[in-house]
């Protein structure tokens, strides 16, 4: 068993040496989380915008529910998807449990409320500013959705990146529905849990560093985009 200092050095060696096991895990993690973010965004951006623009009975309740779901514990999302996809569950026939697809579904459920709720806030604010002008131009409400989404694009990019951060960092949901199967459903977070408990600290630490770097990179990108947009577009 390596000491902690050794573990750190070995971890760096694994990263710099492009260790195939480590690379495979990182690649799968990215594949799952990016898929989840794309699907969730496709659904949640228009949904959030529509929620900002339409008044209907129960709208307040929907907004509260959505805001509450932003804090949905990953294990609960995982459990829900597990029950749906397990052999006895309503979607059991598709045999999706313990596949990357199941992990994507779980992450979509986890981050869709986040993206939708934050989008609603951004679009509502922008709509307040644009309302009279759009009305004056005769823009219909369905047409306002793409208009406002596009004009809020930079703040929404931050929203989407927040969703990505949540998806790539969570461990509970993908552990339950993915099963952490070596080479199939093992992603960075689940691998870290496993390797740590096995005492394989170099790999755990290496993955941890990659994950940390990734989160840092995403946040730096979000910050940069936001700043550039403010400077360029006013």
């Amino acid at each position, binding site marked *: 068993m390596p000491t902690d200092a050794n573990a750190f050095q070995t971890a760096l060696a694994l990263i710099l040496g492009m260790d195939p096991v480590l690379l495979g895990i990182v690649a799968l993690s990215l594949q799952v989380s990016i898929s989840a973010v794309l699907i969730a965004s496709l659904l949640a951006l228009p949904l959030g915008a529509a929620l900002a623009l339409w008044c209907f009975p129960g709208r307040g309740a929907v907004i509260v529910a959505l805001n509450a779901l932003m804090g949905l514990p990953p294990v609960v999302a995982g459990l829900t998807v597990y029950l749906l996809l397990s052999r006895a569950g309503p979607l059991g026939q598709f045999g999706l449990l313990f596949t990357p697809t199941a992990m994507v579904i779980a992450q979509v459920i986890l981050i869709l409320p986040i993206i939708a709720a934050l989008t609603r806030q951004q679009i509502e604010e922008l709509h307040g500013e644009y309302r*009279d002008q759009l009305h*004056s131009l005769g823009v219909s409400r369905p047409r306002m959705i793409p208009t406002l989404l596009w004009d809020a*694009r930079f703040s929404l990019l931050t929203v989407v990146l927040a969703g990505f951060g949540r998806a790539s960092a969570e461990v509970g949901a993908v552990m339950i529905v993915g099963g952490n199967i070596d080479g199939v459903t093992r992603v960075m977070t689940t691998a870290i849990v496993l390797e740590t408990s096995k005492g394989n600290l170099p790999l755990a630490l290496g993955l941890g560093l990659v994950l940390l770097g990734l989160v840092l990179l995403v946040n730096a990108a979000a910050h940069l985009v936001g700043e550039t947009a403010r400077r360029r577009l006013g």
Partner: protein
Amino acid sequence: MNDMLRPATTAGITPQAFEGVSVSHRGQPLLQPLDLRLAGCRRTLVMGPNGAGKSLLLRLAHGLLAPSAGRVRWEGTTPRQAMVFQRPVLLRRSALENLTYALAVTGTPRGERRERAREALTRFGLAALEKRPARVLSGGEQQRLALARAWLTRPEVLFLDEPTSALDPAAIRAVECAVLDFHRRGTRIVMTTHDLNQARRLADEVVLLYGGRLIEHTPAERFFTDPQTAEGRAFLGGELVW
């Protein structure tokens, strides 16, 4: 382009009638019941001190606000309208894209949009700025872009809500010239201002509001030489502050 240069037509713009229109907010009356009729291809300047209800009147006329009582109606087919606001609301896109957007909304075929938008930019002296994000333009340029956008929708009635109140003299001139251009093309102008000199330069007729009440609706010549009411005289004398 050709129909932009069409000679002004003075007939045929649907008259607009305010019938016992009032606005109140949480029981507070903001606009007392008023009757008003705007017709022809006139330049109507709505005047009055701050808080008199000028903007409210304009928003009611343009349909951005529903009256609390009474009704605002067009005596015929609803005409094409546009509104220019005190602080121009521009999309977070380039100057050119702000114009092509308005054209897209009004159903202009995709192939014509850019060309027509460029013509409008040139007309309003903005040709060199077409790629610039609209919101980093100067105040005067932004207002001209808002006017260009209104121009493209070929309004029969143009509402302007204090369009020059935040601008420097050169930009004010540009806006006033544009307003006269619209009028020459056959557009009815309904504009609010608190600037007496501007009203003298632009008005055919004046609507004077004071404290949410309609005080006068008179031809400009009469208003400026011989106002019919005590409030009108006080306003001209600069004594009616609020």
